């Protein structure tokens, strides 16, 4: 990259996110086709979702219910009446050549989500949430050309548009994680990014810090992982800064993120953008949301991540950041609560989940293959000082591969922590005589040398030594 860190520091990014969430209704939004993922191409279609002549859409009311829930869970105002519009463009994956969406009267508006980054708490505004139908999918088959799979056509979506309140890739990620958490808590979507049921478009512009106006915006379409959102934002920020610094003119355009190179590429500029000719859909009457309906849906919303987070902070004394991280996936939070209830060291359980488990879990997965009782037992032994932290981590790893009672495992393999002063002093003396150079370095004031010596003593205990004790003994002996 051409620009220095110091130059980058002069600028800030302004980011708004548009997220498409596929709702897990049983049937599609305007017909009765099933919504299961992964069926053979074009087996979950009917004349209606194929947009054949004379067919008419009839709104699946469950879509409205789910969208209202999403709105309520993100602190939105819910419209009393709302309309559906046709958004026109020609593309082979769009059978009617228009997408039924919403326009000037969205179902939900003026909401927000509170996020937590390592820098602290922040509120991100939500402009609107509207309902719409998904398009089909073009599949490029080598040697055969482009094929159309319309199974996805007519799947129910909500589009959630944030305010441009986001100023770093980290905030963008925290917002997306929080949004996904809320949506999953209320159970209206699986939010599986790898299956496209949670997709993100990034709107980004760059300006000098302290400026009020907005720079030229680019939109990066359809990014399918949090990690790629972060990369795309970081890449785009630098690209904009470079252009501004070089005095080049940026253009408003749509770009795509290339996963292999980590770069973004121009797709089309705004100058030749399509006019979608939005018009009210005459096949679909106005949607009304009664107070009664809103209240019923509100009552169905479970405790949301923020409520759990608050409780974890109060009950278990977790930090805001740790509590946020634990609660952004409902299954993980459920697991935490089960394990925490079976030990006197819930904070340890939290730390083990956020470090050891987080390392072992593949992205987007939430299934921890360890009995919560076993997990709690590890925390208990660790908290009681019967095993050290290294053993604790190794046990999590071992049970991940083969879940068993950790107590018996510790007993059988003799993994208990060695805290006996005499045993540790003997090992320490051996190390001091073997590691003359490190001893000299330490005495010359090199703090790092002390860690080497501690490591060597630990090695002699086969990783079972009590690290606190080892440090005390070594410090004493080297006085």
């Amino acid at each position: 990259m051409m620009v220095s860190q110091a130059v980058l520091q002069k600028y800030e990014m302004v980011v708004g996110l548009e997220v498409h969430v596929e709702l897990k209704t049983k049937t599609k939004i305007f017909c009765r086709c099933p919504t299961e993922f992964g069926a053979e191409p074009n087996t979950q279609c009917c004349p209606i979702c194929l947009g054949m002549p004379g067919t008419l859409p009839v709104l699946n009311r469950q879509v409205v219910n789910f969208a209202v829930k999403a709105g309520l869970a993100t602190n939105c105002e819910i419209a009393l009446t709302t309309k559906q519009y046709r958004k026109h463009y020609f593309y082979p994956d769009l059978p009617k050549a228009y997408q039924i969406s919403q326009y000037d009267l969205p179902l939900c508006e003026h909401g927000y989500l509170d996020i937590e980054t390592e820098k602290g708490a922040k509120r991100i505004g939500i402009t609107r949430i509207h309902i719409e139908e998904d398009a089909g999918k073009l599949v490029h088959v080598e040697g055969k050309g482009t094929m159309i799979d319309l199974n996805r056509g007519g799947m129910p979506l909500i589009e959630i548009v944030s305010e441009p309140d986001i100023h770093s890739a980290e905030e963008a990620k925290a917002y997306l994680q929080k949004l996904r958490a809320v949506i999953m808590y209320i159970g209206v979507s699986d939010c599986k990014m790898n299956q496209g049921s949670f997709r993100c478009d990034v709107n980004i512009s760059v300006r000098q810090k302290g400026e009020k106006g907005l720079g030229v915006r680019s939109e990066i379409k359809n990014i399918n992982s949090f990690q790629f959102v972060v990369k795309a934002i970081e890449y785009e920020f630098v690209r904009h800064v470079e252009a501004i610094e070089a005095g080049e003119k940026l253009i408003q355009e749509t770009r795509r993120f290339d996963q292999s190179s980590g770069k973004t590429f121009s797709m089309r500029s705004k100058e030749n953008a399509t006019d979608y000719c939005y018009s009210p859909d005459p096949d679909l009457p106005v949607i009304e949301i009664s107070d009664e309906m809103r209240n019923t849906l509100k009552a169905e919303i479970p405790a949301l991540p923020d409520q759990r987070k608050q409780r974890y902070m109060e009950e278990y004394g977790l930090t805001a950041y740790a509590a946020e991280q634990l609660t952004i996936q409902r299954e993980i939070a459920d697991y935490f609560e089960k394990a925490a209830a079976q030990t006197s060291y819930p904070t340890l359980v939290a730390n083990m989940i956020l470090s050891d488990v987080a390392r072992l879990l593949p992205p987007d997965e939430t299934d921890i293959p360890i009995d919560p009782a076993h997990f709690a037992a590890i925390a208990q032994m660790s908290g009681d000082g019967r095993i050290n932290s290294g053993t604790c981590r190794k046990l999590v790893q071992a049970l991940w591969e083969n879940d068993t009672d950790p107590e018996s495992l510790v007993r059988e393999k003799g993994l208990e922590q060695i805290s006996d002063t005499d045993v540790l002093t003997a090992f320490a003396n051996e190390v001091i005589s073997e590691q003359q150079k490190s001893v000299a370095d330490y005495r010359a004031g090199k703090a790092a040398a002390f860690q080497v010596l501690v490591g060597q003593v630990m090695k002699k205990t086969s990783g079972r030594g009590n690290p606190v004790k080892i440090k005390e003994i070594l410090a004493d002996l080297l006085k």
Partner: protein
Amino acid sequence: MSEQIVKMTVGELSDRLATRDVSAVEAATAYLDKISELDGDIGAYITVTAERALEQAAKVDKLRTEGEKLSPLAGIPAGIKDNICTKGIRTTCASRMLENFIPPYNAFVIERLEERNVVMLGKLNMDEFAMGSTNETSYYKPVRNPRDLTRVPGGSSGGGAAAVAAGEAAFALGSDTGGSIRQPAAFCGIVGMKPTYGAVSRNGAVALASSLDQIGPLTKNVLDSALVLEAIIGYDENDATSLDYDWPSFTQRLEQGAKGLRIALPKEYFGEGAAAEIKEAVKAAASKYERLGATVEEVSLPNMRYALPAYYVISSAEASSNLARFDGVKYGFRAEGCNDIDEIYKATRSEGFGREVKRRIMLGSFVLSAGYYDAYYKKALQVRTLICEDFNRVFERFDVILAPVAPTTAYKLGENSGNPLEMYMGNIYTVPINIAGLPSLSIPCGTDSQGLPIGMQLIGKPFAEPLLYQAAYAFEQSSGKGDA
């Protein structure tokens, strides 16, 4: 016998079928023979389904022999406008675009007719995608008026009106977006009904303008219209604009007369635009109603003059959207020799649609485009509200509005086809009714000096169908026109 059968009304034929005086196969054969004899000149059919018709008829005869209780429409031979989808039978909308389109589903109204064992003779010619009022925009052939083969039958349901008038169908189903049932009925001297918006399901009718389209019957007389509408009316959960309403019988109260009926004559319908003979004929009908015990009073619908432009803005906007799906990708016509998808779109739509269709698509896209939406489309929707209010005001004091259907009688073929505006003007009396979603029944009320039929329409408030039939029947009976 064959000549007699095709002259019978649905009511008469139904009776003869019920007493097994005439068999369904005989009836179907009579109509198919008539089609063979006349349709080369008239051009009412795009597709004749003779074999299927005879099979259906044979089935009806078998059921009747077995003593099955059948609907009054069982065995009645009918024609269906070619924008109403018929499972397994091509449905072209009189367009090159759908020349080979065979729907895998039936329209709601077809299901209703099949349940009642109506015999389908074939698919009727029309203006392409129902855009036009002369039937000259059909890709296949124009339709000629059976009353005078040098003249148009009106449109867009011109095939249906001509078929019924010529004895090529006992009744027909048409669609009416801005007058497409009533105007051809008037031009051909038959009865045409445009029901309340939402009364008949649009499911399976290829849309022209979704907020205006309604399917309705074209018949020889008022009773037939009531019989057919009773069969196809009613709620359909697959059409979100369908009305969930408990409709009373239309046939039962037909004979209650016109006494006490409060009839309004809107002065805007009797201005300079209308031919003198037409104004006279409708006024004469008003006088007849007075003699039958009705009261007649002149009223004003001040916003009528905005109806035609508002109609063409709204209907073209919706049409351009509804017809966007004909892109050559999934079904229907696809242009040859294209190199990429954009070329396929452009060439397919340039070659697949006719001039009038393309004109309306362009007009519709224009009024919906950013920067023009408010000035045209939004304005037209505001006009729509004003027009509804005009009608509501009149219906506070009146039961029925009586007015001409069209400003002229049937014109010569080619007379207006080069002048779209002139053609659009021909709809000036029918479009306000679609804009307001009202029911309107077009019935004959005489002929002009050239012997061409004149039509008048009885317009009611939503759900007033029974009253319209009652009023029309009273007039028809007094004119001695009820018998064929």
